[in-house]
């Protein structure tokens, strides 16, 4: 698979479709699995890693997982390509930065991703657009069952699936939603909401998961424990709380429109204006302004921008995407190129190749 072909498309999870996709960007389920006959990745020799990668690659290729998969040898990718996959959420930052034999199998819609030799031998993830945790769970079960037909997973009769980190042992499942919560941030209610989530054993993370900073008012909410409850119960635990958060965010948006409409309209318009005219702009500022514009689109304050366009820009203005879109032009900085790309996009040009024409 040529990664360059992906620059012209966006993953299914960014299309802005599915239930409550105005607030829930995506729903994700991932499973951590290890092969019984190999040491954990953190303790594996170079040869062990190579053997694990070969066994998983060959066996995954031999079973139908419901989607045609392309395999990418991450260990031999250039750094920019590894970053590119991280920005598309197809691999983790840790997988990108790791050493030794490793790879990822992905489907064309970028819904299914199977990381080999991440923290665990195998990390299976399914991402859907909008609030669709049950759909993602049903899909990942099929993938897991098919792979289990051809490998022996490390499984303890009492502790369940054994994982490299004790925080994942048991089901090995992490259920998460990526939420866009600008109104809760503006009304300064977000910390109170997060404190409540911690009390019910849910974790809050930034756009790129563990260890990442929240940018542009995007947050990931996920389960913290993986043992003692069934997978269905853990999926439901997250699924139960999301409607409550959606309701809080909607109420906060209503409040903003009702009580401070001029102010909100001004914030949105300024953000849109800067994105359309800036000559240099950082990644962080872009995310923040795109967040405001996204809210403006959803509140009907901006009429000529599609939600999927904003979602797409959130990814395409990331450093590795910009560098690939730039096509090797090393003369301008990321911030100048990002501003140029945004100006061109809002002028009506979507073709990445035209971004350098200005």
């Amino acid at each position, binding site marked *: 698979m040529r990664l360059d072909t992906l620059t012209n498309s966006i993953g299914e999870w960014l299309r802005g479709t599915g239930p409550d996709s105005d607030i829930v960007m995506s729903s994700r389920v991932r499973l951590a699995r290890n092969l019984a006959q190999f040491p954990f990745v953190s*303790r594996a020799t170079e040869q062990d890693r190579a053997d694990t990668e070969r066994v998983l690659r060959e066996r995954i290729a*031999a079973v139908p997982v419901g989607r045609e998969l392309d395999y990418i040898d991450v260990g031999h990718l250039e750094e920019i390509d590894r970053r590119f996959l991280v920005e598309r959420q197809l691999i983790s930052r840790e997988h990108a930065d790791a050493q030794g034999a490793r790879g990822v199998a992905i489907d064309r819609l970028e819904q299914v991703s199977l990381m080999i030799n991440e923290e665990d031998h195998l990390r299976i993830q399914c991402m859907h657009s909008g609030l669709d945790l049950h759909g993602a769970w049903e899909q990942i079960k099929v993938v897991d069952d098919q792979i289990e*037909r051809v490998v022996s997973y490390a499984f303890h009769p009492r*502790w369940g699936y054994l994982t490299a980190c004790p925080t994942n*042992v048991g*089901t090995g*499942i992490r259920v998460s939603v990526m939420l866009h919560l600008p109104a809760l941030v503006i009304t300064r209610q977000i910390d109170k909401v997060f404190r409540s989530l911690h009390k019910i054993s849910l974790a809050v993370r930034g756009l790129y998961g563990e260890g990442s900073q929240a940018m542009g008012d995007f947050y990931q909410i996920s389960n913290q424990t993986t043992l003692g*409850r069934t997978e269905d119960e853990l999926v439901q635990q997250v699924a139960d709380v999301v409607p409550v958060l959606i309701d809080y965010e909607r109420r906060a948006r209503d409040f903003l429109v009702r009580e401070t409409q001029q102010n909100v309209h001004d914030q949105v318009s300024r953000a849109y204006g800067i994105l359309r005219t800036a000559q240099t702009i950082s990644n962080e500022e872009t995310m923040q302004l795109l967040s405001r514009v996204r809210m403006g689109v959803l509140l009907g304050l901006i009429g000529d921008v599609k939600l999927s366009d904003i979602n797409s820009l959130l990814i395409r203005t990331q450093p590795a995407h910009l560098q690939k879109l730039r096509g090797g032009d090393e003369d301008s900085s990321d911030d100048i190129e990002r501003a140029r790309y945004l100006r061109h996009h809002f002028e009506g040009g979507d073709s990445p190749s035209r971004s350098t024409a200005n």
Partner: protein
Amino acid sequence: MRCRAIFFKNVNLASLWNRGFAEDVVDFIFFEKELDPLIANIHGATEHTGRRPSRPVPAGVDAESGTDGLTAIIGLRRGMKEAISREDYESAKEARDAIRGIEDAWTPPAAKAGEENA
């Protein structure tokens, strides 16, 4: 959550898990008693109630614990590495053949069929 710093009674449990106990899967069985408090501390539970592998227990693996084969194969892998390091290639070959025998017993029928057709 990544295994970076999970402290319990001033001990970095993630480090313990990775470096002290769980070098191999079999260590989970050897150190079951020691690891139980760690798991209870993280999850508030020590019993898995979710999905289980549906494949039949392979030959050579204890049906109750599922661990005999694991114990054997990991011990053999260690023995093979040690034999290679002291250039005892005869012992290394014996260990390798024994590992292959157990792995063959473990390989699910679907994987074997795929390998034969390949």
